[in-house]
């Protein structure tokens, strides 16, 4: 899959973390060339579900080059919930240089 195509799907996801957009991401993932991820909580804080919107996952290709960032939450009947489930198939990259938790 071309970089542009996955970028379009991710852009849609950033605009609206609906189930439909997440499903499109899951569908595109196997052929996207994306292999690794890192979940980042920018200020480390997580107090309420709303805070998930500040967090993101950096995705990498098989050579561990950073490609795109995606949200890690889903909007479900108005509420924000965690959505790392949709990232199944990706592997943690554990890159130490940008490790935040």
């Amino acid at each position: 899959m071309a970089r542009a195509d996955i970028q379009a799907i991710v852009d849609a996801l950033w605009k609206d973390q609906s189930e439909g957009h997440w499903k499109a991401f899951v569908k595109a993932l196997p052929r996207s060339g994306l292999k690794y991820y890192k979940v980042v909580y920018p200020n480390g804080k997580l107090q309420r579900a709303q805070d998930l919107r500040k967090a993101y996952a950096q995705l990498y290709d098989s050579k561990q080059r950073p490609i795109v960032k995606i949200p890690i939450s889903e909007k479900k009947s108005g509420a924000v919930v965690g959505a790392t489930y949709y990232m199944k198939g990706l592997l943690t990259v554990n890159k130490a240089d940008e490790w935040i938790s």
Partner: protein
Amino acid sequence: MIEQDLKPLEEKSIYVIREAKLKFKNVAALWSMGKDSTTMLALTRKAFLGKIPFPVIHIDNGIDFPETYAFREWLSKKWNFKVIVGRSEIKPDPMGSACCGRNKPETLKKLLEEYGFDALIVSIRRDEHGIRAKERYMSPRDRDFRWDYKNQPAELWDDYASKLDAKEHMRVHPLLDWNEIDVWRYIKREHIPVNPLYFSRNGFRYRSLGCTHCTVALKSNAKNVDDIIRELRTTRQEERSGRSMDKEHEAAMERLRALGYM
């Protein structure tokens, strides 16, 4: 870290798991997709001739590692058991851990009521944390999950507590006597599948698994089970040092435990 004989540990665990199933009407097990609760499932299969005769509960806060979800689906298919997923909320928690603190037991409590479980198999080990040294193989919890550790039923010989008020449920701890290294040696001996997060990537691995928010990778080059066993033989670090929650005051953990945090 002391390496114990695996055979008596295995026998005892199988005895306790069978006892739970045969003594209580409606049993469930907690599964975090970590090494301990997965080993518990492997022991359960040994106890019941290849089957897992009770449902397995995952309390999911929505931000577990993707590998953990993948492992959940892969193993539940491979070993053919039923998984009940309870969705826990991320919200302010007086204990300071919004992801995995008191919010998880709250969800568990609702599940127990909904399904009417009277016994819950939990894969804690005594060597994990100081206060777990006081746990029993079977230990009652009241409706609010409180653990009255000073007033636990006597547990002697193979006679475990069974008297229960309708409001209570029994926590069953078949892995109580295992040490961390014993679990890994058993995983090696029995070829038990484990979550790939335990193995090193880019010089880091996870030693104890929580969710993506509260778990930190530790420096390690252990790439397989043998490496991990070798690493544990020399480490002086505590197992749960990669879990941010434990770094807080110990009393907080104590209160969590009394509230039913697993």
